[in-house]
């Protein structure tokens, strides 16, 4: 079928209208759920609808996650979590509404201070709980605010509220969407539109694991660790440096990344509670084994109504504990001895340890440090599914092929300071197959660090000592 020019003319108008209308419609981004969530049976994902007051609705995993974290347009602050959401917690001290002008006096806890500027206040408790009021005039010294218009209900003294709540999250979200989401994805799943072209793949935060940290092997990443990566980038990967962002921009990005990471970890841990019995695969096996699907679903209903709610709370508590402790000085690795001065003896000792049975670095990194140890040609099994991987080599928790570093390159992804290398060896690289060597004496780790730092400058294998053989006079004459 061919269109005549006159037909084209008729088509143009509706096409143009469609483009204009489509282009201008509001775009709503939303967090996506992990593949593990969608592998559960539909009832476990979506919960049960409420049929009567006696049988209220029961949330499924998706709802439980949304309740705590919301969506990009409508972020929720779960105050239990160690994330700086922004805003000042305060309470209403006085409220008056005279001649249509409402004024509120706010007070803050002792030791805390009122913000310099304020444009809105979110009421947390009292008659107006859940509403956000706009502030037209703010006096930072007295905490007196004039509201825009009259609130629909009375505010009473003692109501708790948050002034300018969520400002950090909001700016973090805007920056994240602009600079990060095309690789790391809106949900932090490392599957943004540009991710498929990259090797190594962008980090999927939802495991709550970051590779390059200054903290011990059992700790999470600290704020400072994430900040360092944002500022200096990761050489050898596609992660660029964002050094030119201001300090407050970087800080709000760090908070938003923590938020995404916690969201993913929460979702993951919730699914862990259910996956054993209620994944589609498990239910198929169980029904084959003779159980009726109805019985399984009612068991699930019971579990979602009671056990999961408790589990969700304890998961939240656990995450809050882990992430806050990891942000303290206690979690940071501090060598007990200063770096052993770099010397040929230390390097030699480092090489001995590198090759030793206890550290066994050569098993992955190769005898000459080229990242080609025997493990790189072994076939591994996926620890979760038990199936062997399709390609030979080591795999990380994200199921990506995990190439042991070629130590000749002189590129250090987690930083090239001696302490960075020390931390890599002490805590391992989290999520990867680089294990922790925390029980190795610190002095020995320093020897290995000295050796590893010297590898890029070793003469090529097989090269004879030309530098030594050359007469010293020749070097002085060289231009």
């Amino acid at each position, binding site marked *: 079928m061919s269109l005549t020019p006159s037909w084209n003319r008729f088509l143009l108008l509706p096409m143009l209208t469609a483009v204009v209308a489509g282009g201008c419609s509001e775009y709503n981004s939303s967090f996506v759920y992990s593949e593990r969530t969608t592998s559960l049976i539909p009832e476990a994902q979506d919960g049960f609808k409420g049929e009567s007051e006696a049988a209220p609705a029961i949330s499924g995993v998706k709802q439980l996650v949304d309740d705590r974290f919301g969506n990009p347009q409508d972020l929720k602050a779960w105050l239990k979590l160690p994330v700086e959401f922004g805003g000042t917690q305060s309470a209403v001290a006085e409220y008056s509404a005279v001649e249509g002008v409402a004024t509120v006096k706010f007070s803050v806890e002792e030791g805390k201070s009122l913000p310099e500027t304020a444009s809105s206040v979110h009421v947390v408790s009292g008659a107006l709980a859940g509403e956000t009021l706009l502030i037209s005039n703010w006096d930072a010294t007295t905490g007196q605010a004039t509201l825009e218009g009259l609130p629909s209900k009375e505010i009473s003294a003692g109501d708790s509220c948050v002034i300018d709540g969520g400002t950090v999250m909001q700016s973090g979200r805007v920056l994240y969407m602009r600079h990060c989401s095309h690789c790391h994805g809106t949900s932090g799943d490392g599957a943004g539109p540009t991710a498929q072209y990259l090797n190594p793949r962008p980090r999927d935060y939802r495991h709550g694991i970051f590779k390059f940290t200054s903290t011990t092997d059992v700790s999470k990443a600290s704020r400072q660790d994430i900040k360092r990566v944002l500022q200096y*980038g990761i050489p050898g990967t596609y992660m660029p440096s964002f050094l*030119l962002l201001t300090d407050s921009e970087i800080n709000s990005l760090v908070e938003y990344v923590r938020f995404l990471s916690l969201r993913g970890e929460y979702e993951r841990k919730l699914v862990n509670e259910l996956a054993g019995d209620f994944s589609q695969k498990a239910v198929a096996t169980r029904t084959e084994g003779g159980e009726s699907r109805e019985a399984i679903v009612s068991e699930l209903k019971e579990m979602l109504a009671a056990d999961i709610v408790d589990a969700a709370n304890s998961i939240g508590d656990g995450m809050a504990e882990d992430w806050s402790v990891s942000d303290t000085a206690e979690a940071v690795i501090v060598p007990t*001895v200063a770096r052993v001065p770099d010397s040929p003896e230390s390097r030699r000792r480092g090489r001995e340890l590198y090759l030793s049975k206890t550290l066994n670095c050569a098993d992955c990194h190769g005898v000459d440090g080229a990242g080609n140890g025997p493990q790189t040609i072994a076939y591994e099994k996926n620890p979760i599914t038990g199936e062997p991987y399709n390609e030979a080599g080591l795999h990380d928790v994200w199921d990506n092929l995990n190439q042991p570093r070629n130590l000749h390159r002189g590129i250090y992804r987690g930083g090239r*300071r*001696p302490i960075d290398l*020390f931390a890599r060896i002490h805590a391992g690289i989290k999520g990867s197959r680089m294990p922790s060597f925390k029980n190795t004496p610190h002095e020995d780790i320093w020897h290995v660090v000295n050796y590893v730092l010297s590898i890029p400058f070793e003469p090529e294998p097989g090269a004879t000592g030309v530098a030594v053989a050359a007469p010293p006079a020749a070097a002085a004459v060289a231009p």
Partner: protein
Amino acid sequence: MKKFWALFFIFWPIVALYVCLVAPSRNWWFPSAPMSSVGHQIDGLFYLILIIVAVTFVGTQVGLGYALWKGATKKSGEKAVFSHGSHKLEIMWTIVPSFVLVFISLTQLEVLANIRVLARFPDEARKTPVAEVTARQFEWRIRYPKPGTQLSTEPQEGDLYFVNELHVPVSQPVMVHLRTQDVQHAFFAPKLRVKQDAVPGLVIPIWFEIEKAGEYELVCAELCGWGHYKMKARIIAESEESYLKYLAALETDQNEDGVADEAASASDEE
């Protein structure tokens, strides 16, 4: 209507003349005054060419306007005169522009040589390159030689590394080595009037002398991929003293072993 078109074409050279006269004082052409020594020469060349082009444009437009105006005001009975070429005129308009072009190319040779020919670089800059700048999708990685040593093409033990921030001493010619790790990029410092492509496989020397201490933007000027627009860094020109202090601080940071801090704070407490 005929007169309108005649006036229309006479109007534009007047606008062009006005813009050319006013622009330099209003800084319409450049992001700022040139901040490097070479920048003055480059701007000088730009203005020289601008004057030549403006004179040509205004001249031809005046000629066009004159012809149009004569035609527009011609009485209806008057006959047109037919002419078929003029050898003299053709020789003129061939020779004059060729002289102008040869003049421009000879004048700019000096400046071009100053920027591009290694042998013409200031000696002090050429002998001691301050850093190697490696462009990469999408950032600038900087490598300084270990303080007290000469920059080498290959990384050396003790070299200092940083990213997206290049420190150089002010008021003295400095040379950096430019290379790229992946695709083509271009080292562009608009206020310094420095622009040089980074080509895979080549180490390209560039030099500049920043006249005033401060922070200067360094951007990529060769479309290098989706993140091209945010491939930005800063060049910080500072006194020799604070430059050396910066390098010393960088060296200390790069040798950080995580325990030095504790020892320092312990000695503070004593």
